[in-house]
């Protein structure tokens, strides 16, 4: 099973809905990150500690 954590539809910073839809159709579990976008067009989370917390949870709580 593919557990994927990614932003969706956020400029450069995430898979688009079509890509996510394909993956989910194939059985992947895609969790939307909802990151924020920086000046370079990246979707990043460093401005918000809650994103770091979510990453920690995603990494450590998997397959339990």
């Amino acid at each position, binding site marked *: 099973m*593919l557990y994927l954590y990614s932003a969706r539809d956020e400029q450069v910073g995430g898979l688009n809905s079509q890509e996510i839809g394909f*993956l989910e159709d194939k059985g992947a579990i895609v969790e939307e990150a909802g990151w924020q976008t920086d000046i370079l067009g990246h979707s990043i989370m460093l401005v918000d500690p809650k994103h770091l917390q979510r990453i920690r949870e995603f*990494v450590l709580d*998997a397959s339990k």
Partner: protein
Amino acid sequence: MKKFIIQTILLGLFMVFSQSPAVYAQSCQMPDGTQKEISCNVYLDQLYSACAAPDEIADAQSGKCVPIVAFKRPLMGCFEDQCDIATSYPGYSPLALTSDLASFKLEGYLNAETVVIFLQEVPDDRVADHYVQFLEEYALVAYVLQTNVAKMGIVKASDMTVEDARLEQQENLRLIHTAYTAIRAQFPEKRIVLAGHSMGAFLTLGYLAEYGNNFDRVMAMAGRVDLPLDFVRRFAIGQNFLFDHVGDVSRYEETREVREVHKFSPYLRTAYSPNAESTLLAAVGLPRYS
């Protein structure tokens, strides 16, 4: 002069890596499959410094100095008369990695249940700390050497091709897989998570496409399955295109910040992969834990 530059860069890399805090694990996977208690980055430096000729590197198995494997530096978007953009970058170096070179470093909590294999963004990775370094308190984090961060800033090249970009991507994926294989062998009971940001996110998805899903979880941060070639072409000439929800080029803006980021645009070389989406989808059906 060239040798001096190389040595300076290697020294700089060593200083950067040596300043990283809390190195609990320094076991490096050697090409013959054995483990040595040595920093993998020090190991890389040793391979370079063992040879007097700047264009040679010590073969990890025989110890003999052999010519470096020099890929032509590709830049996606450098087409025809636009190639002056590529050559304007102050530093572009031929890739210098032997075919059997494996290099990554492990930091963090050695007894943790989880290993995070992290793929950084552009060579000047300014934000990686924010993404993953905090995880070192909870997990063992493997920072994988990537081709375009191995030796930046030596020479510039203008003969970059799309095919070269694909070769470099394949080499990056091989390095990732080498790191994964070594980590899986060394820590068979640990969970392994693959995480990449930006260029690293493209490589993350590329790995899934080419090698399948070997991981318990995957994070793709600020990257996607593929880039429209038009995006890359325009990016190289100074236009920063953004994506709409279907992944097409929708709009662009040219700002000071955008111009600033152009010097990092080489990371786009690794992004373009024909049929990446279909191969990624096929890979999803090949999980490690099914």
